[in-house]
């Protein structure tokens, strides 16, 4: 019986580590192969404190968590700049450094053989040395860690993580501070792994570095992948399967007689099972999008008055630290230059976007129109020139800050969060949210819930405005191309920014939707938004634009109403070839 309970405890401990790694790998798309290091930091910190100083395991655990969080934050900083295979190598390197440290500090850690005799778990003076006695404590911590993981991932916070995973640049454009979220998720993942590590060392009554090698990290990664990325229950199920299968294989016939090298057979069978899992359940035992089926959404519909309200510029945003709010030209650009090597992509461009007006940028392909949007929104660095938003200089500010100041953009290519629901896409765009803040998330959940309910209602309204409300509950990836473009428009509206830069939203959408788009932008401008569009559809430009800038080879070569520009034979020659 003790053997079965022992297995249950192992499964629960590995579940916690797998969940903590799933935060990074599954939800945020940060492929880490060094997670065993955090597991080990928790185990050694807690175990050694108890061994040398007789510290209670709860205090030791706390120390382990703190050290792991600091280590996690330190790793996350270089990890901000690298991705995929580079991040894999970086985390492996980190794991090796920690392993090397533990092995070489013989006096402290016991070196290669570790330390035997770590005091067992205890609670209120009761010694919990047997598996049966330790089980309740392990279940308790498993439940706490699972709840933390669940809260983090099924909330606005988790939504941002998934958004970063699906498209980091789009997440930046919606005002998400990628730096902050990456540091947080690395630290949280490390902290949770340390909890499991602490329990592990006290339960086994020993710690040894060999339990926390890169091999162990690969095993943890296998738990996440086989269980299902971004599915917490999947991690638990994978721990159950991958820990019990080897145990069952020890009962293979022939194990006693020693006729066959039974350990080799076990490894082979185990490996074959992994291959079979990946072949038949490539998205894991429990894939990410299993849980939302059957979820029913009900929202109060938006009234006409409210609809006007949510399309007007967000007054609270406009005044956040910006002077000159009465300025009639919210966006002013002076002498902008951007060169790529010998190519003058943007060459001394100055332009003003007047309030309540629709300005169009037109011109041949490669004229530098999209580059100007990228420079304004901080996605490209400006070589020289100045950009002012309501009198405040925003040149070379990071994209998320520019979004917070009330300027939002859409992308020319389809940039959506493909593995998220349509509704969640819009919710990501709904500005800074209380639920993205850990303090509110865990200590003021009612506020988060209230705001979330209201945001859902707003998001549905934005989807309704672009005609996608019936598709709110499907994956964004399953939308048709044109619908994905409309979704980008809904997200742009949801930012409630005062200045909107819209890059070719109508290309590829049907005439009915184009009509709706045109009346919508006109309405938005009438309600006080400042809008700039890049558009090749001349009918659209003529119908909606108040003013147009004609660009060619990075320069503004003419400014005027669309009709004036299109009457100029020199320009039509460039643009239409006639």
């Amino acid at each position, binding site marked *: 019986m003790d053997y079965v309970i022992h297995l249950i405890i192992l499964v629960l401990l590995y579940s916690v580590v797998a969940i903590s790694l799933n935060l990074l790998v599954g939800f945020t798309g940060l492929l880490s192969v060094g997670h065993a290091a955090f597991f080990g930091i928790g185990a050694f910190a807690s175990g050694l404190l108890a061994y040398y100083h007789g510290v209670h395991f709860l205090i030791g655990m706390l120390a382990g968590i703190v050290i792991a969080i600091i280590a996690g934050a330190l790793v996350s900083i270089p990890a901000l700049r690298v991705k995929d295979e580079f991040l894999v190598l970086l985390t492996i390197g980190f794991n090796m450094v920690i392993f090397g440290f533990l092995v070489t500090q013989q006096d402290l850690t016991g070196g290669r053989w570790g330390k035997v005799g770590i005091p067992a778990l205890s609670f209120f003076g009761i010694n919990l040395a047997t598996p049966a006695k330790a089980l309740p404590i392990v279940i308790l911590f498993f439940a706490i860690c699972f709840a933390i993981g669940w809260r983090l991932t099924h909330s606005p916070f988790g939504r941002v993580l998934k958004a970063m995973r699906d498209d980091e640049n789009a997440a930046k454009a919606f005002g998400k501070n990628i730096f902050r979220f990456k540091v947080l998720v690395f630290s949280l993942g490390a902290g949770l792994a340390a909890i499991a590590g602490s329990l592990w060392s006290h339960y086994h009554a020993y710690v040894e570095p060999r339990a926390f090698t890169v091999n162990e990290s690969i095993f943890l990664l296998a738990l996440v992948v086989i269980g299902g990325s971004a599915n917490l229950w999947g991690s638990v199920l994978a721990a159950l399967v991958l820990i019990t299968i080897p145990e069952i294989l020890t009962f293979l016939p022939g194990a006693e007689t020693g006729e066959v090298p039974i350990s080799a057979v076990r490894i082979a069978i185990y490996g074959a099972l992994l291959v079979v899992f990946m072949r038949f359940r490539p998205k894991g035992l429990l894939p990410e999008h299993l849980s939302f089926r059957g979820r029913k959404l009900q929202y109060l519909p938006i009234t006409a008055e409210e609809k006007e309200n949510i399309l007007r510029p967000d007054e609270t945003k406009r005044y956040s630290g910006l002077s000159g709010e009465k300025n009639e030209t919210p966006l002013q650009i002076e002498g902008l230059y951007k060169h790529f090597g010998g190519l003058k992509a943007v060459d001394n461009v100055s332009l003003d976007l007047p309030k309540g007006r629709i300005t169009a940028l037109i011109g041949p*392909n490669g004229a530098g129109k999209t580059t100007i949007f990228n420079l304004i929104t901080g996605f490209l660095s400006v070589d020289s020139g100045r950009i002012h938003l309501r009198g405040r200089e925003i040149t070379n500010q990071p994209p998320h800050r520019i979004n917070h100041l009330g300027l939002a953009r859409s992308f020319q*290519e389809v940039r959506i969060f493909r593995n998220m629901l349509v509704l969640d896409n819009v919710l990501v765009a709904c500005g800074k949210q209380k639920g993205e803040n850990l303090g509110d998330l865990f200590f003021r959940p009612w506020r988060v819930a209230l705001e979330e309910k209201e945001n859902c209602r707003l998001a549905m309204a934005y989807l309704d405005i672009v005609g996608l409300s019936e598709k709110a509950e499907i994956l964004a990836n399953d*939308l*048709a191309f044109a619908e994905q473009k409309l979704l980008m428009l809904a997200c742009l509206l949801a930012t409630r920014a005062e200045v909107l830069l819209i890059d070719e939203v109508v290309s*590829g959408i049907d005439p009915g939707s184009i009509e709706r788009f045109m009346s919508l932008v006109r309405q938005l401008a009438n309600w006080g938004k400042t809008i700039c569009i890049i558009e*090749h559809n001349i009918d659209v430009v003529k119908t909606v634009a108040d003013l147009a800038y004609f660009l060619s080879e990075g320069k503004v070569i003419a400014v005027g109403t669309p009709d004036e520009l299109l009457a100029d034979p020199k320009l039509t020659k*460039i*643009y239409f070839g*006639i």
Partner: protein
Amino acid sequence: MFMELNDFEVGYSKKVIVHGISMRIGEGEIVSIIGHNGAGKTTTLKGIMGILRPLRGKVVFKGQDITGHSPLENVKNGISFLPQDRFIFPELSVKENLDLGAYTVEDDINSRLEIIYQLFPILKERSGQRSSTLSGGERRMLGLGMILITRPQLLLLDEPSLGLAPVLVTTLLESLRNIRDSFGTSILLVEQNVRQAMEFAQRVYVMKMGSIILEEKGEKLLQRGEWWDLF
């Protein structure tokens, strides 16, 4: 008939998007599909190309049943497809992309490259440049260059004019017509630019909710004037 769809049904896993449509394209004919967002136009093209496996029905190309053939087989067979987005390899140079487009071409590709460069001179200018640095319109030209280099007999084009300035749209449509005239290529075109599609195509299919609701000569549909109601 050059290409024919019979009772053709396609979709994603278990969700049927295109419901048993029938369609035909003659040799050297230009045919356009128009319709709502999400009407199943792109899905139809993907089904013909073999990117999605047809759930029912038949695709016949030059008298041969090609239902369920892989995209590679279809390219070798003379069918090419230009998707709406993500059709170039952004980390590779323009020239490398064109070389990849010519993957199935066995003879000397230099003369073919020259023709592509004549069609889109900007690609020659930028041939050494990494294609991620191209503008949206230039990327589309590169995408077209990549599929035209195989000299396909049937071109499946999903909104080729997307993101192109008017001058290039005109050039593009003219060059497509030239290609048709010189090589007898048939073209099946999905276009949201409805007016242009009707002017350009000899025949137009209008799709709605996964079915074909109308088949008409392009110019006739244009004259009808009330085509707007179809949306």
